[in-house]
């Protein structure tokens, strides 16, 4: 397995301390890694170039947050840029004021048009519409049979065509008439797959558009598409004016960088993603999820956002200074634990993280909310002097503290050990809030 971007960036920034700033120099390697990650995800290289520029501009001069390691901070910027580019939120289908609304389903051969037509029909009928499907694919063997069977399985109507009706234009015209007569409010037109450079077939789509005035022209694209995505999408858009994109086969492990490419050359919204061969395998498009996937990560952003909310920047900076100057006291330790608790149940936080790299080590970390409560109670039972200087806590004091906090001397001993370990470790790892050695300690620390 490859390391994912976040592992790589962690390595890139391992020397950049918390007090630094993101600069041209320390960002250079990071940007290279980001570029590779995007290319490996099949984002078109020209689009990658644009993105890298945007990321560079945004990152430059940013103060390194204490709450996040520089690598996390950069990832956050990258993800925000990708999400922005993918479109800020999910889009809906549009309908004509003068029904039936016609939707034209177009795309390359084998991209998933017929399957998506069935999925849309099902989705529409579940949302209060009454769709009629029609296949105008008169070229591929058994293409119209395929849609007929899809419709039969869905128990939704399909216009099958009159005997001798073999022209796409005729089929489409009759289907619309049939929809109007039977009170169907949406006509879904499944078209034959075609290459964007096939002039004759592209002209045919133009004619269908002219005849039907479709409100939606949906371009169906395969998530596995590589660099060529920009060419086909651009050409379909130029010749037809597509109004939206459906990204299919997202149930596999393709990273789906084509989504960015298509979006960037057409500017049209991604509306749905296909996640399986069955008719119910259609989901709305969530830019953020797709951005994570392109970067090969889990939902790390929500995690980072939470961390940002929970941790006061000034306070964190102060903590950093203390660590470096060896002034990190038991009281600080307690404050850190309290902050940690603000992040919510740790298990669920960890489950947001992808199970790769450092997170693999973290899987073995026992996260015990009760233990945090116990540790906080122990520290609360100490005198301010004890909290300030743990060296003075002798046997007698330990017994008193145990009694005061309702714990045992062993618990107190263990806490003190953890604290000294944490101090040592955090000095080494200051700047990052998760270090490799964490597995040995029982608590994740900031």
């Amino acid at each position, binding site marked *: 397995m490859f390391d994912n971007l976040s592992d790589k960036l962690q390595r890139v920034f391992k020397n950049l301390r918390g007090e630094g700033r993101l600069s041209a120099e320390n960002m250079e390697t990071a940007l290279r890694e980001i570029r590779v990650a995007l290319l490996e995800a099949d984002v078109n290289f020209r689009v990658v170039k644009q993105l890298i520029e945007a990321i560079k501009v945004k990152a430059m001069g940013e103060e390194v947050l204490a709450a996040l390691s520089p690598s996390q901070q950069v990832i956050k910027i990258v993800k925000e840029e990708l999400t922005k580019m993918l479109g800020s939120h999910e889009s809906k289908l549009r309908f004509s004021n003068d029904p039936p609304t016609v939707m034209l389903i177009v795309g390359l*051969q084998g991209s*998933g048009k017929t399957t998506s037509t069935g999925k849309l029909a099902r989705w529409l009928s579940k949302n209060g519409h009454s769709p009629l499907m029609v296949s105008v694919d008169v070229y591929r063997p*058994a293409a119209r049979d395929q849609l007929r069977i899809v419709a039969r399985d869905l128990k939704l109507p399909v216009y099958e065509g009159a005997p001798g009706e073999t022209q796409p234009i005729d089929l489409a015209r009759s289907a619309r008439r049939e929809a109007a007569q039977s009170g169907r409010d949406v006509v879904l037109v499944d078209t034959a797959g075609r290459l964007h450079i096939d002039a004759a077939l592209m002209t045919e789509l133009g004619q269908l558009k002219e005849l039907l005035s479709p409100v939606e022209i949906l371009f169906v694209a*395969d998530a596995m598409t590589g660099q060529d995505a920009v060419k086909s999408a651009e050409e379909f858009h130029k010749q037809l004016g597509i109004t939206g994109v459906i990204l299919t086969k997202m149930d596999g492990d393709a990273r789906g960088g084509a989504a960015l490419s298509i979006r960037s050359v057409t500017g049209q919204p991604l509306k749905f993603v296909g996640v399986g*061969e069955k008719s119910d395998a259609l989901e709305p498009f969530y830019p953020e999820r797709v951005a994570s996937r392109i970067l090969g990560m889990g939902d790390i952003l929500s995690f980072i956002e939470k961390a940002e909310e929970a941790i006061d920047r000034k306070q964190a900076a102060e903590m950093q200074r203390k660590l470096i100057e060896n002034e990190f006291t038991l009281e600080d330790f307690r404050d850190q634990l309290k902050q940690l608790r603000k992040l919510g149940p740790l298990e669920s936080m960890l489950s947001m993280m992808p199970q790769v790299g450092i997170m693999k080590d973290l899987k073995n970390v026992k996260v015990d909310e009760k233990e945090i409560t116990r540790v906080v109670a122990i520290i609360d039972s100490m005198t301010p002097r004890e909290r300030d200087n743990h060296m003075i806590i002798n046997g007698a004091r330990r017994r008193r503290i145990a009694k005061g906090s309702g714990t045992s001397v062993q618990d107190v001993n263990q806490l003190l050990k953890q604290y000294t370990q944490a101090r040592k470790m955090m000095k080494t790892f200051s700047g990052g809030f998760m270090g490799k050695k964490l597995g040995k300690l029982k608590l994740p620390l900031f």
Partner: protein
Amino acid sequence: MQTLFGSVEQEPSLLERLKRGVQKTRSGLVSKLEDALAGRKEIDADLLDELEATLIGADIGVATVNEILERIRQRVDRKLTGDAAEIRGLIREHLLEILQASDLPPALVDEPPAVVMVIGVNGSGKTTTIGKLARRYHNEGRSVLLCAADTFRAAAIEQLEIWGERTKTEVISQSPGSDPSAVLFNAVQAARARKMDYVIIDTAGRLQTKTNLMAELEKMRRTAAKVIPSAPHEVLLVLDAVTGQNGLEQARRFTETAGVTGIVLTKLDGTAKGGVVVAIARELNLPIRYVGVGEQADDLIPFDPEKFIASLFEGPGSEKSA
């Protein structure tokens, strides 16, 4: 052209090919580069960038591209090397080495029928390729039987049957939803009983991440071997030329579970270059047997590495859009 039954056209013998290969390597990258260095002409960073963009734009993949360019950079100080044409020539040479190294002929079949399984992800062009293969084998004077083992996708059986009519080839099928292995078993038995030369198995498209569907392919393989121990003789992975880096993962997984013996690269009549096959050849040593260049029965041609490489350097859809 090597077929499962030996050569049909005049092709260099294996020995000749090996000899050629050795010469290629000797006169390969290093010596050419030395020549280039002796020339001491200018090469600028822009050229390398442009070449990188061309190769990445062809879906060769950033790792393979970096490896190629690194080999050049390593030996070449940017200030003193050959001209653009020369560098381009070196890259061509390197790509050719990768593709020819994996250019292995299919294993010969002692006794017909040769069992050919056609597999791949959804919509890559399997069924169409089978129609084209049937046409091709007929043209070589062979008898062919088709097997409709995609019992899952709507109208998949009808689609293959139409290809059967077009190419005058009999199709063995069962009803939709039946066990693909059962159809395969019948077809292979029928092919043997009737002394057919080829039986080609159409399979349902599947993403390589679906464990149960991948296990189904394994079962189909085992079923074929039950009838003819040496079967399947050829397992063709059909890859759409528009596929990006996921193609490598497809090749890995399908090879792991279904023992792919060769690749068919479809839809090369579009603007996509299909460069991911370079990464596949490099890692898995899989030969590319044919390329698909259209939707008609005759649109299947044997893979030609030199032409393929030349097309990587051509502009976007240059000759087609004209």
